[in-house]
């Protein structure tokens, strides 16, 4: 059991019908394993299918094709059993504003069937995790945005789940609050809780994820540790060329003829795997003040594989 992946998705397809009647394939043959005890970052641009995938894991969205298993339970057949063992932190703040911090947690302690004897202790523990013990009696409507987000996380952890799904956990938060939450998520990971975290923030994935799966167009386009992904798709270094559009187009054509990947961001063309630039091409590209060489990053991989700039 310990060796089984916490989450398995096999050839999962999810289609939606648009308002105009046309069909949209949100998830298109997704196959993914999330090993137990690992923090996996599900990385992809908006519309890549991350949130739909998260919803399918809780059976709030039903797959049209394929198989899903969560903590040994086939979903949706045994979705209730699977949900009992996992905690979900949604992208949307759906706390009850009229209730206090403690009351929000108590309701979910009931829903997760915590025994009466352990309920109080579980709520106290969740309050400590979210650093909200001193705010237990405060109504949610009076909390700051960061506190609300921490409470959302605490609500998903009130029953000490074996698996936590975090859907864009820090989207729209200021840097300080984001750093607080990163600390909280890192704590979960260090305790050995399996975490599946969808995000389109590269830095978040780099900091927290043991491994990343890159989603684009409803399927996984690359998977591995951040280091592996960078090495495989972007190489060691990147050479950034700045210049007028005509010159950038010329550089792109030259580099592509040499078989190296590029990415274009505004007035910049980045040549990936720059360590493989042959001397002849290096001469043609030039080496003036408008060229910068730097280490390759996960962001380069993201842009190359998804065709989207980081938002």
């Amino acid at each position, binding site marked *: 059991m310990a060796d089984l992946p916490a989450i398995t998705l096999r050839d999962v397809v999810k289609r939606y019908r648009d308002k105009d009647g046309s069909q949209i394939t949100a998830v298109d043959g997704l196959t993914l394993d999330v090993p137990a005890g690992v923090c996996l970052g599900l990385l992809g641009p908006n519309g890549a299918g991350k949130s739909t995938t998260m919803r399918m894991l809780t059976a709030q969205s039903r797959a049209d094709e394929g198989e899903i298993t969560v903590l040994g339970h086939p979903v949706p057949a045994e979705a209730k059993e699977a949900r009992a063992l996992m905690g*979900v932190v949604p992208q949307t703040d759906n706390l009850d504003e009229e209730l206090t911090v403690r009351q929000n947690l108590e309701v979910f302690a009931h829903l997760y069937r915590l025994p009466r004897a352990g309920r109080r202790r579980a709520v106290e523990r969740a309050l400590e995790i979210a650093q909200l013990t001193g705010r237990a009696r405060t109504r949610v409507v009076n909390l700051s945005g960061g506190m609300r987000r921490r409470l959302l996380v605490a609500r998903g952890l009130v029953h000490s789940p074996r698996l936590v799904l975090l859907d864009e956990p820090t989207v729209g938060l200021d840097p300080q609050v984001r750093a607080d939450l990163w600390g909280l998520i890192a704590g979960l990971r260090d305790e050995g809780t399996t975490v599946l975290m969808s995000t389109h923030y590269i830095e978040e994935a780099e900091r927290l994820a043991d491994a990343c799966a890159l989603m684009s167009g409803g399927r996984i386009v690359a998977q591995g540790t951040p280091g592996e992904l960078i090495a495989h798709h972007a190489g060691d270094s990147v050479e950034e060329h700045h210049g007028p559009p005509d010159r950038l187009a010329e550089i792109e054509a030259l580099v592509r003829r040499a078989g190296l990947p590029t990415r274009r961001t505004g007035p910049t063309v980045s040549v990936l795997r720059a360590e493989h630039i042959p001397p002849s091409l290096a001469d043609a590209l030039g080496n003036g003040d408008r060229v910068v060489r730097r280490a390759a990053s996960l962001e380069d991989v993201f842009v190359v594989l998804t065709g989207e700039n980081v938002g």
Partner: protein
Amino acid sequence: MADTRLRRFEWAPVRGVWRHELALFRRYWPSSSFASTVEPTIYLLAFGFGFGSLLGHVAGYRYVDFVGTGVVATAALFTSVFPGMFNTYVRRVYQHSYEAVLAAPVDVHELVAGEASWIAVKSGMFSCVPLLVAMLFGLHPAAGMLAVPLFTTLTAVGFALFGVWASTVVPSINSFDYVITGILTPLFLVAGTFFPISGLPAWARTAAHVNPLYHCVELVRHAVFGFHPLADLGHLGTLALFAAVMAVLAVRGMRRRLID
């Protein structure tokens, strides 16, 4: 929690929903109790003494007693169907509360059971208030009155579930106007609450018999003035059937809206 097989229907989610509602009720009980009890009392006083002074007796009862018993049913209607419609709609569409609940080990039918049962029990209790007020104005107490909360709660279960179902059918919150004017107002008026249905045209009498509220009115009157066992079993059966049909529709509607 331990890795165990869960039953298709469990009471834990219902208790969780009740815990949530109880916390809200503790905060808002003065305003919600005021609206739920004073409004039917105003109807009772206005119709009972307004029309009562003109009519004296109706269908063999003092008019104030006739209305006093009838208003109990309308109180059950309004204190159940409105929370069923509006609370459910707001929580689903604006607050996204149900997404959070359904991410826990809770299925849609358990969520609906929790919401509808809370509304029904609260409504069942509140709707007895007009009876107490009527007693202050001369309605004689009867042992059968003890059964009234059961009848009003059963009625409220059906209408709470009707409200939940309606909330899944309307395209926007403004569309509830169609439900209120097109369905609830006729139900409210053609139920034998303020006047006996015997004076209505034949088609309206037939319509009244399929109106669940009429069956509640009859049960409450019989509880106060004397049971008619066979007829009352029929009234109870009709209310139970109404609740069962609405339960199926409400769960289907919520599942369609919450699970894609």
